[in-house]
């Protein structure tokens, strides 16, 4: 039975069908309108839930936090993207992605989550299928298979098990949680974890992520790679349905998170291509998120969710700027850039602020969330904390170095001609200002965000401990 909240995902799907038949300018306007309306609705839901103090409808802390993030990502891409890259198929893909992600965040039906999870990957597949890049197509297909099949199998098996047990609504998350996973608990839990790790880009199943970000069309690649669905499914489904198993493997997942974090940071350090660098930065950050989540401690899990949200905002902003440079100069290789600040001072300022925020500069949301995350992990795992801090330091060096290589320094023979280079266009400026303001405001006044995720995180952890 559909309710008012389902309009949040139904509208984007309907609009996706509509824009395929509309004229290009009208299609863009429809897409922008739908995404902005979704953002407003998501922010209203977040604000209203804060005042009501507790989970509402089918939303809980993580979904309330991640909903505005998803809608904001799509809106920012639509606002800042070069017009010629937003053809009808791309716009439709973006709206499908929006609908599918919002749909997965707004439901407690595990089958619906699995279906939306799969649908959210289709736009990426459609965007690369027409390219002549065979390795890219292969990477996307393998990643899709590893994302969709294990999760679909696990959730399907859970529902089948519930149905055989005679449960009234075997697809409902709360019902399944009460019933337990049965004999195949470990296998199903592993399947969910595999899909989540692939989606988040956790080492060693991360390779598709930087590759796709480097080679695929950015309009679809950005929101797909930056989708928070991996973390969401882990917290909402994995921790709820397999609490005992996930507690048991935390001893493996925490070092894996630390490894992913330092591995990503090492690769960020050696990159010349800004898009690939952003990809490895996401891998590094997701390692920290995994470590925070598997610390199974309230600060760690809350911090990981907030950190994920903050990092995605930072990377989104950085990628929009890199995209802007690429659209103007046709290159994202830092060795062939440099001294852009004279022509694009606002772009340089925004890039610097987002880089500083990405590495946890005080006064930004990343600082607060990183502090919480590290406090959560530190208690029982000081070695993991040390590795995470080292990775953060390396990432800081790499990102600020990238800023200097792109925007500062004397022009060389490889530097582009910047005489006719435009600074941020109004759309780009609007999107980057929105992201920077969001990072600073939530960094200076973090209490509402912390409050929003805390209650549901605490409930999840209590359930996990009971299951133990």
């Amino acid at each position, binding site marked *: 039975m559909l309710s008012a909240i389902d309009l949040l995902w139904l509208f984007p799907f309907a609009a996706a069908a509509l824009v395929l038949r509309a004229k290009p300018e009208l299609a863009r306007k429809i897409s922008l309108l739908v995404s902005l309306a979704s953002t407003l609705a998501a922010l209203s839901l977040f604000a209203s839930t804060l005042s009501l103090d507790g989970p509402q409808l089918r939303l809980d802390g993580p979904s309330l936090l991640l909903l505005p993030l998803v809608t904001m990502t799509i809106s920012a891409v639509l606002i800042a993207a070069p017009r010629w890259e937003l053809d009808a198929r791309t716009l439709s893909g973006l709206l499908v992605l929006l609908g599918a992600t919002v749909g997965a965040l707004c439901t407690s039906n595990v089958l619906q989550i699995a279906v939306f999870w799969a649908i959210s990957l289709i736009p990426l597949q459609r965007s690369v299928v027409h390219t002549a890049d065979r390795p890219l197509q292969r990477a996307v297909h393998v990643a899709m298979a590893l994302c969709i099949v294990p999760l679909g199998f696990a959730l399907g098996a859970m529902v089948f098990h519930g149905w055989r047990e005679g449960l009234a609504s075997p697809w409902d998350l709360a019902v399944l949680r009460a019933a337990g996973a049965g004999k195949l608990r470990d296998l199903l839990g592993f399947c969910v974890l595999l899909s989540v790790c692939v989606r988040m880009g956790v080492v060693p199943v991360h390779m598709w992520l930087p590759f796709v970000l480097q080679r695929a069309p950015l309009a679809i690649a950005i929101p797909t790679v930056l989708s928070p669905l991996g973390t969401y499914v882990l917290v909402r489904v994995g921790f709820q349905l397999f609490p005992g198993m996930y507690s048991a493997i935390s001893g493996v997942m925490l070092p894996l998170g630390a490894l992913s974090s330092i591995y990503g940071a090492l690769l960020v350090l050696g990159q010349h291509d800004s898009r690939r660098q952003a990809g490895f930065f996401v891998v590094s950050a997701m390692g920290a998120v995994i470590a925070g989540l598997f610390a199974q401690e309230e600060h760690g899990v809350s911090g990981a969710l907030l950190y994920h949200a903050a990092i995605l905002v930072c990377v989104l902003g950085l990628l929009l700027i890199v995209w802007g440079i690429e659209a103007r100069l046709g290159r994202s*290789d830092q060795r062939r850039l440099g001294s852009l600040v004279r022509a694009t001072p606002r772009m340089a300022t925004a890039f610097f602020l987002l880089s500083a925020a990405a590495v946890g500069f005080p006064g930004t949301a990343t600082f607060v969330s990183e502090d919480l995350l590290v406090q959560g992990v530190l208690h029982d795992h000081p070695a993991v904390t040390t590795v995470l801090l080292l990775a953060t*330091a390396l990432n800081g060096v790499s990102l600020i170095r990238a800023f200097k290589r792109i925007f500062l320094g004397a022009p060389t023979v490889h530097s582009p001609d910047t005489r006719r280079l435009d600074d941020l266009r109004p759309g780009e400026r609007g999107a980057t200002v929105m992201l920077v303001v969001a990072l600073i405001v939530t960094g200076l006044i973090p209490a509402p965000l912390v409050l929003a995720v*805390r209650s549901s995180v605490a409930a999840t952890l209590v359930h996990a401990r009971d299951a133990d």
Partner: protein
Amino acid sequence: VLVETWLPRIIAAVPGFPIIGALLIGALSLLDRRPSERTVARIAEIVLWLSFFGALACASAWGHHGQQPIDARLGYWFKAKDYGFELAFYVDGIAVAMALLVGLLLLATYKFSVTYLHREPGFVRFFALILAFAGGMQTLVLGGSFDLLFAGWEIVGITSVLLVAFFHERTGPVRAAIRVLVTYRLCDIGLLLGALWLHQAYHTTVYADLFRGPGAHGMTPGMVIAVGLAILFAAMGKSAQFPVGGWLPRAMEGPTASSAVFYGGLSVHAGVYLLLRAEPLYAHAPAVRAAIVVVGLVTAAIGTLSGQARADAKTALAYATLGQVGLMFAECGLGFTRLALLHLCAHALLRYYQFLRTPSTLEDALSRRANLGVTAADQRAARWEGLGIRTRRYLYRLAIERFQVEATLERWVVRPVLRLSAALDELERHLMDGGPPPHDDASSIKPAPMVQAPRSAKREA
């Protein structure tokens, strides 16, 4: 009542005013019309004076409090269950001396820079960064917890990096700034780890709670050494101590006023301040104290010898600063904290003045010689005559090569990390692509090295 209600707000205003000023200048410059020099200077003057008066009020309150430490708390920045980031301030003799020194030197910097940077394209940027630095530095010295100290520490670090790259249209300053950044970021891990271990041991990093209670006695001996060494590592980075001090001579690429206030006056002494502040924690750990003394003395020797082999005034001053700060480290390690504080204040004032005078070094030297004739200071090389020619040559070579410290770090730390990164990247590309990336026509471009010899060394070579 004063301490509980008004004093926390007054103390918070000391770093708060400059930060508000920096944000205001930043907001104005983001508008389409660039603010005039007069407007920027007026904003800077007002907020720096207000901040200085705040520092004076803190000193006065400390005096009225019987010169006892004041523990003032403003509430929590954020709180989650049993953990919260407390906005605590701590006013004692060290904080008062440092806050007044910071206020004074920044007012002098303002006065100097308004004229010195007149019509410089980066005038607005310079003042925004100086005000941000003022806020960060006052947060660092008045903050009442290692958490808040870290926030100020980070602001000081990032403003330092940006001011080294102030003349960003040249390659040298940009490379120097990257070098500063790498050292700062890696050494900041020490401060973070120290703070986290304190959290683990005491569930707080607020000085008043740490120092009032059992002090370091509540921790295991191993934990005390670990925290002490972590804090030492952080202090080494910010104060350019052996073996991570190679960034300081390079940092002279920024404007004279920022070099004076950062590397003559304040930022370079932040490490000494950290050691003074954390002294109760490592006071009963001889291993940590010995490490501090060794680091300080080795740096003092290297700084003094290397400084004497430099040809340009700014670099020679930078090495002289290294030497003096090294001595301050040794004083902290030996437990002479009052002497170290006095040394810090006196050295900061003298060095600040010397850095400001460097553009007129030649004029000063000629004028001195005209009035005093040739003095012992002009014949510094004569001091080496007591040594044999081979020893002198050997020492000179070591000094000119800065004792091979950076070359060793480059060979054994930086290059292996970069090689590992390149090897992993190659593996990833091979697995995903089966070969090199398409359209990679930039692969022939040699990237800039992360470590670059300073200008003076190049000239000498």
